[in-house]
């Protein structure tokens, strides 16, 4: 049985028979030991994506969904994890949208759930079906904010934080890690929730620029990624471009991740495709709509979809070619720049034809 003290009601509700499966996420000692055991020298950590995934993602690891679902998320690295046939990963993240399609292929088997879905583009019927069929097991339920506090506690270097979130909700009855306590600073009743520091095994974070040692720069929302990089036992950086160390030193304002966290640096232009990369490219909105309106409908559809886009693509360049190649890149760059700052006078048009099941869009706007 597990090392830590878990909420027995949540263990019963979640039907967890051996609680040792919960341990690593909150096992600070082993995370610290892993961080100490890394080579801390400022060395060249560049390698190929397949080398990085092969070396640093192991079957059964607790992996993260980083960025914000489809914003600056290392989708192309996730696809390589799928192509390498990794098995039985636990997924954690706020949001945790990308775990869904990995369940179908045995890549994701366990979920620390906060949010899985595509907002107004529809509920994720695939996730619902996989859960009902027992293909994924939820190990804990969270809100975005409480999970973010767990990652932040790890970055702060503290055993946990006291939160005012989750109180009174059923999430408490489906989360073995968190505990309602009395605020020790008060004599009158004041319930608070202890959120332990969370330590995933491996995180893959897509950034705008990194030097060869792993100092990494992010533009736009960092969401939870700086905390994730500080917490995770193993950190893979995929970067739109590799820059000289002097570039990082002279543009240090945006440096978000220090090199010592990092195990692997992968040069990965278009590493966030088909998601949005601030400053570089907008979403392929039709790809995501196809994922939710076609692929999520049945297991057969999901297999056909992923055979085409993941298992049938060698790398991100083949993926971009399928989206529409240079024309797609040009449009995606124009849209993201317009969305961020410069369409006031020239009126870039964001309208597009949403994905229709019977019509291949050709270029996936």
């Amino acid at each position, binding site marked *: 049985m597990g090392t830590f003290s878990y909420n027995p009601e949540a263990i019963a*509700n*979640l*039907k967890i028979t051996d609680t040792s499966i919960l341990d690593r996420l909150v096992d600070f000692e082993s995370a610290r030991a892993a961080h100490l055991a890394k080579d801390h020298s400022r060395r060249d950590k560049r390698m190929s994506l397949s080398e990085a995934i092969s070396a640093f993602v192991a079957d059964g690891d607790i992996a993260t969904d980083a960025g*914000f*679902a*489809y*914003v600056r998320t290392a989708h192309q690295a996730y696809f390589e994890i799928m192509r390498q046939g990794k098995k039985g990963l636990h997924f954690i993240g706020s*949001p*945790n949208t990308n775990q869904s399609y990995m369940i179908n292929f045995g890549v994701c088997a366990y979920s620390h*759930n*906060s*949010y*899985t*879905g*595509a*907002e*107004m583009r529809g*509920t*994720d019927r695939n996730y*619902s079906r996989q859960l*009902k069929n*027992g293909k994924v097991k*939820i190990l804990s*339920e*969270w*809100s*975005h*904010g409480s999970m*973010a*506090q767990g990652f932040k506690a790890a970055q702060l270097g503290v055993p946990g934080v006291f939160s*005012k*979130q*989750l*109180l*009174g*909700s*059923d*999430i408490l009855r*489906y989360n073995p890690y968190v505990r309602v306590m009395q605020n020790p600073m008060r004599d009158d*009743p004041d*319930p*608070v929730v202890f959120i332990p520091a969370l330590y995933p095994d491996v995180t893959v974070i897509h950034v705008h620029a990194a030097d060869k040692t792993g100092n990494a720069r992010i533009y*736009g*929302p*960092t*969401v*939870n990624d700086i*905390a994730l990089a500080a917490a995770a036992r193993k950190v893979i950086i995929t970067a739109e471009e590799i820059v000289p160390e002097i570039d990082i030193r002279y543009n240090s304002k945006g440096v978000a991740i220090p090199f010592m966290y990092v195990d692997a640096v992968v040069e990965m232009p278009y590493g966030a495709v088909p998601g*949005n990369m601030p400053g570089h490219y*907008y*979403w392929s*909105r039709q790809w995501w709509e196809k994922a939710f309106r076609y692929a999520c409908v049945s297991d057969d559809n999901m297999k056909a979809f992923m055979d085409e886009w993941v298992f049938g693509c060698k790398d991100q360049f083949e993926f971009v070619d399928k989206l529409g190649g240079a024309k797609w890149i040009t449009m995606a760059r124009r849209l*993201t720049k*317009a*969305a*961020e*700052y410069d*369409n006031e006078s020239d009126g870039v048009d*964001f*309208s597009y034809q949403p994905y229709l099941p019977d019509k291949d869009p050709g270029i996936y706007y």
Partner: protein
Amino acid sequence: MTTNKPANPLEMVAYVLSRQISDHQVVYVGTGLPMVSAILAHKTHAPNITMVYESGGQNPIEGDMPWSVGDPFTWRKSPMIQEMAYSFAQSYNGYVDIAFLGFAQIDCYGNINTHMIGDDFHKPKARLTGSGGNNDLSSLTENMVLVGIQSPDKFPKKLDFITSVGHLTGGDSRKKAGMLGKGPVAVVTNAGVYDFEPVSKRMRVKSLHAGVNFDLAQLTTGFELLKPEGEIPVTDAPSDEALHILRTEVDPHGVFTSIPGM
């Protein structure tokens, strides 16, 4: 889309929700109709509000309708972007005046379910998204406004899962459980606007949209609605000007507010 057509039910919801915002407020915005309403308020009666999004963007200079709460339009030319943990902390620390959230189910105390439909967690009839930021904002924000479509399934006696606490079991139970803020102050649906009776904290009709009477509202609700004293007011409908702005500037592609055939 022309302005002489009356508001469809989604446009009505968006408009009524926008009226919950006062100028100069800090507004925490969830995805979908909350986003539409905040932007509509900003373009009409509340041009000086500050919008906050959980992905970190805040106070964007407006552009097109965001595709997601992580869209660049949520941080367009923002003075700063917050990390997620710090973004929710603004609600805890008292800097957020009002937040809007959607739901799959709501009960008579304004508790919310966005987790699942069915009574078996392991084999639900339908698994939904989970909390996202819903629980965080419901736990921390001073004034919550909840928005959704009204039907007996969506307004059940008992939730299938309590994702977020509103007034818990009524009375002062929310405060006793340790949550901050007033909890839900209003519920906006396609049928009407509801508030919560001050002592019992049970959902009460505040106004009903044109064409809806109390019996109809009750028919679409799985629990007993409270009736206000006196005559039930009719909710103000949007002016032609507000509808025009909604249709041409806020949601010109009808992503959130169009209904096929209307």
